[in-house]
């Protein structure tokens, strides 16, 4: 099946200057594609550069180097106001902390309608209000909530407001940066169910950034694992769980505790030792099987292939 590439990230780099001579390579040479209608999960420890990748894609940061193509058009570089508006309408973001990403002095109505105003999507006040009320209902809140302020809501409800705000301009692509990490377990399931339902109803494409692998596995079609600014493995989510090849992926998978005492009694943790890698050449992301990419050298590629055949 030929799928359309909605987003292409090519050799993306984001380096931050720290102090006079130090550079932190938060994202270093990351490439991946996201197909239309799928959910791409980006996983890694804190400091692995997963959030920076998401934020660079949506232009919250300027890329140091590399390209991001959205619908075939370059996202970065100089743009006219019209071009920017058009781009912003297609790509939206949901943030991790729903309490700090909503303006405490604006009502929910104004928060959600801000995008509508910017893009001139509504003609008059009545239509604006009707649109917001409709969005509130889509995300499972009440019409009457429109005139309240963010502090009157619980964490899960605030995250729903964040989702309604992202949906307001009818984007085709949403970046969700740890949207459930700050929520309670029972509320997490509510928000994830909502995101999945919206995707089905509206044909949305997601970039889902998180560190909770089991949740990412549940929501994603494909998963990319990041480690220290590099993408070390990309594959379909079942493939990652069934045949992890990169030693870091293995160690990450072996570290997640599952809610199953029997399994936990026998679980063996594998620790990651970066010195096992072959250093004869610079590693790069290579395709090892259909849709399965691993960052390795050519020597390691042969090893992994033997491992995969077993």
């Amino acid at each position, binding site marked *: 099946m030929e799928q359309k590439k909605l987003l292409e990230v090519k050799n993306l780099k984001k380096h931050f200057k720290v102090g006079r001579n130090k550079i932190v390579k938060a994202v270093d040479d990351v490439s991946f594609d996201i197909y239309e209608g799928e959910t791409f999960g980006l996983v890694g420890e804190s400091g692995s550069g997963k959030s920076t990748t998401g934020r660079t894609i949506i232009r919250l940061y300027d890329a140091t180097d590399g390209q991001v193509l959205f619908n075939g058009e370059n996202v970065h570089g100089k743009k006219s106001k019209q071009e920017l508006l058009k781009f912003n309408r297609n790509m939206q973001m949901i943030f991790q902390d729903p309490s700090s990403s909503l303006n405490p002095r604006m009502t929910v109505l104004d928060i959600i309608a801000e995008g509508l105003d910017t893009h001139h999507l509504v003609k008059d006040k009545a239509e604006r209000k009707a649109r917001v009320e409709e969005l509130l209902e889509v995300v499972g809140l009440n019409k009457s909530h429109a005139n309240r302020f963010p502090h009157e809501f619980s964490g899960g409800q605030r995250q729903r407001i964040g989702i309604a705000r992202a949906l307001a301009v009818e984007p085709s692509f949403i970046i969700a940066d740890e949207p459930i990490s700050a929520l309670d377990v029972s509320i997490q*399931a*509510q928000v994830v169910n909502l995101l*999945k339902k919206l995707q089905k109803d509206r044909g949305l494409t997601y970039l889902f950034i998180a560190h909770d692998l089991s949740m990412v596995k549940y929501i994603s079609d494909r998963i990319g694992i990041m480690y220290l600014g590099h993408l070390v493995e990309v594959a379909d989510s079942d493939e990652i769980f069934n045949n992890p090849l990169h030693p870091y992926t293995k160690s990450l998978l072996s570290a*997640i505790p*599952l809610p199953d005492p029997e*399994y936990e009694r026998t679980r063996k943790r594998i620790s990651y030792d970066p010195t096992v890698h072959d250093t004869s050449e610079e590693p790069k992301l290579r395709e090892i099987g259909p849709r399965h990419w691993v960052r390795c050298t050519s020597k390691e590629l042969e090893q992994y292939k033997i491992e995969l055949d077993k």
Partner: protein
Amino acid sequence: MSKLLEVKDLRVSFNTYNGEVQAVRGVNFELNKGETLAIVGESGSGKSVTTSALMGLLPKPQAMIKTGEILFEGQDIVKKSNKEMQKIRGKDISMVFQDPMSSLNPTMKVGNQIMEGLIKHQHMNRTDAKKKALELLDQVGIPHPDVRLHQYPHQFSGGMRQRVVIAIALACNPKILIADEPTTALDVTIQAQILELMKEIQRESDSAIVFITHDLGVVANVADRVAVMYAGKIIETGTVDDIFYNAKHPYTWGLLGSMPTPDSDDEELFAIPGSPPDMSNPPKGDAFAPRNKFALEIDTVMEPPMFKVSDTHYAATWLLHEDAPKIEPPDSVKKRMQGFARTRGDK
């Protein structure tokens, strides 16, 4: 098994501008030597308030213990003065907090922070205390303890900082270690290391651990017994196998169902609808009833007592009453309770 701690009908309320908030509403549990009890619940369920009461750390005068006894080796902690508590705290009962960043003193060298308790409680001199501190840092797996001893908390990474906090908590060989979400702020790989460390230390020192968390994966890993809290009460308690393979309370079902398993990709998660009740005005009857799709009529009128499932397993739900209709947990939860298919890489 010897009983180390017994909590009887503990009720804690906070006085606020909105009136009285009943954070803990009649909690009973006991803790035996050498075991790990996990307390699970959402934020606001009263799990942290319960443990603050154990440590005598409730903020005064807002918080008051309305009724209840906390018997530690037969003595009631509730009645102890602050001065008496200071002798227990850090010596017999010590605590590991969630955020290692804010539970260490940033202006004090790590070594001094570990030695503080040793000098105060065990009346060691500085040389002996220093020797012990070095041992402790080594025990919690911090490399180069002699160098690290003279460093400040900001020179440590998050996982290392949490190790220091654990070293401080362990300094006086406490009988009870209370760990309040000790790994929530850490990455999974670091979390796994810290959990292994805590289990190893427990094996060596035979201390009891009260482990507070909302991550059921972590519970399955560390706990011997589990207490599930909701709206200030323990609604189900049992051994870890009772809770994970034979849960009886719909709230526990909801918690289990809201975690995805490696092979549950297509089905919708069994989410608990709504949000936790407002504890300044707790609902009549069963507090969970408004969110419970299995709620019976009686749930809105009368609070369910603890029903006995087995010698180790109790649950507070009317569904266990002999007149109640037989209700099976939802399929997705049943599947989880039958054990998880292992679709991991390390088959």
